């Protein structure tokens, strides 16, 4: 019997659903966006919209760049020069490229490093700790990895990443952007005050999250319960919108840039719009060792860690944060 029970089990997953308003003093939306560091995919959906505004399109096109370097020795990320040039003058993220966290060594650089505090090293460059770390990376175990890097600089000077890593085959990349307009899209009806939905009146946050996945995977939303191939359909109640704008950006995307995009999407409702809500979803790198802040992230079956905002026309918002088996509960 226990074998049969095992056959029906799946690893645990968690979905946190919050609702709040952007104008609330204690709203944590900024903190949650800016502490989710290694973002692979950012998508937004705007119902009743055929063309993006100039401001939004400009933001989307300038959300990069990010960089790749090859065979970078790990000790290069703890040198005083690197810390002074990049870590102290903005926030720098890095993640090993093409390493699977369930199989290989993986390294990540976070803007506020805890395990090896780069700020501490730079304040005490001749300390025993600093010397030992440097020795272990250089002599004892000269680890080299291909990295993806991104840097948000707070100063006015141009990015110097290209010249700094010139001997490591550094390349600049622009995130890939796809823009679609979908016609006659069935959208769930939502009430911002009802996270769990209301029978016959509004869909729940769970149903919305699932539906959003169907839209971005291009699933058919109009099946019948007796169809052979698929029985999936849009949660009810729903309405049909004539058109909707979908945008997807993939690459290594900085949390600071995502926050700017979120703010711009909030401004979408500064003028009256037909759409009652819009969504912004962000998916983390499956092989990042952390999800939010220093919370450990693992790859059990999926490596998923993602979040989604539903932005309502009165500045209410829903925030869903989803993680898989080897992750702690999102903050």
């Amino acid at each position, binding site marked *: 019997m226990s074998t049969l029970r095992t*056959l*029906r*089990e*799946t690893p*645990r*997953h*968690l*979905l*946190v*659903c*919050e*609702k*709040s*308003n952007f*104008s*609330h003093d*204690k*709203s944590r939306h900024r903190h949650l966006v800016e502490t989710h560091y290694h973002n*692979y*995919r950012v*998508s937004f959906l705007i119902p009743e919209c055929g063309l993006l505004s100039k401001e939004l399109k400009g933001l989307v096109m300038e959300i990069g760049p990010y960089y790749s370097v090859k065979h970078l020795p790990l000790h290069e990320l703890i040198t005083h020069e690197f810390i002074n040039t990049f870590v102290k003058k903005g926030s720098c993220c890095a993640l090993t*490229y093409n390493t*699977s966290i369930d199989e290989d060594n993986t390294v990540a650089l976070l803007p506020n490093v805890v395990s090896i505090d780069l700020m501490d090293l730079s304040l005490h460059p001749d300390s025993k700790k600093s010397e030992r770390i440097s020795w272990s990376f250089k002599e004892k175990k000269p680890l080299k990895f291909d990295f993806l890097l991104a840097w948000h600089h707070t100063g006015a000077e141009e990015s110097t990443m290209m010249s700094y890593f010139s001997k490591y085959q550094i*390349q600049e*990349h622009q995130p890939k952007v796809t823009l679609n307009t979908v016609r006659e899209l069935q959208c769930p009806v939502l009430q*911002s*005050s009802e*996270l769990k939905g209301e029978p016959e009146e509004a869909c729940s946050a*769970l149903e919305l*999250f*699932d539906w*959003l*996945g*169907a839209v*971005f*995977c*291009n*699933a*058919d939303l109009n*099946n019948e319960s007796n169809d*052979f*191939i*698929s029985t999936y359909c849009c949660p009810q109640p729903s309405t049909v919108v004539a058109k909707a704008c979908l945008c*997807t950006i*993939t*690459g290594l995307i900085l949390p600071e840039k995502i926050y700017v995009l979120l703010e711009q999407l909030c401004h979408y409702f500064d003028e009256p719009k037909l759409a009652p809500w819009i969504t912004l979803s962000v*998916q983390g790198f*499956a*092989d990042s060792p952390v999800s939010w802040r220093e919370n450990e992230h693992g790859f059990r*079956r*999926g490596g*998923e860690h*993602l979040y*989604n905002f539903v932005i309502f*026309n*009165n*500045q*209410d918002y829903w925030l869903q944060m989803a993680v*898989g088996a080897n992750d702690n*509960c999102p903050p």
Partner: protein
Amino acid sequence: MPAPATAYERVVYKNPSEYHYMKVCLEFQEHGVGLNAAQFKQLLVSALKDLFGEVGAALPVDVLTYEEKTLSAILRVSSSGLVKLWSSLTLLGSYKNKKCAFRVIQVSPFLLALSGNSRELELN
């Protein structure tokens, strides 16, 4: 007139998803083998039947998306049926006497997670 601001609320759901989603790809040893969506679905049903019999074959599986050119699909199955479906796909070895294998590319209880795969990021 927009509704007044809502109060803060937080709900944590443990294992809320009654479904799991799989992104799969069918590979044949020889080229030129094609299946339409209905044939693909029938193949899933027969894979379940081969391993788990008639009861297994009755497990509801939805083919949410199907691309005939690449023989890839996103499937939806009840969470309690995931292991049965996955093991059936693993052990399927042929279709109409042609050798083939299912590759499972992604699995998640969240369909939104299957809309992107960071392991497929290519740098130009």
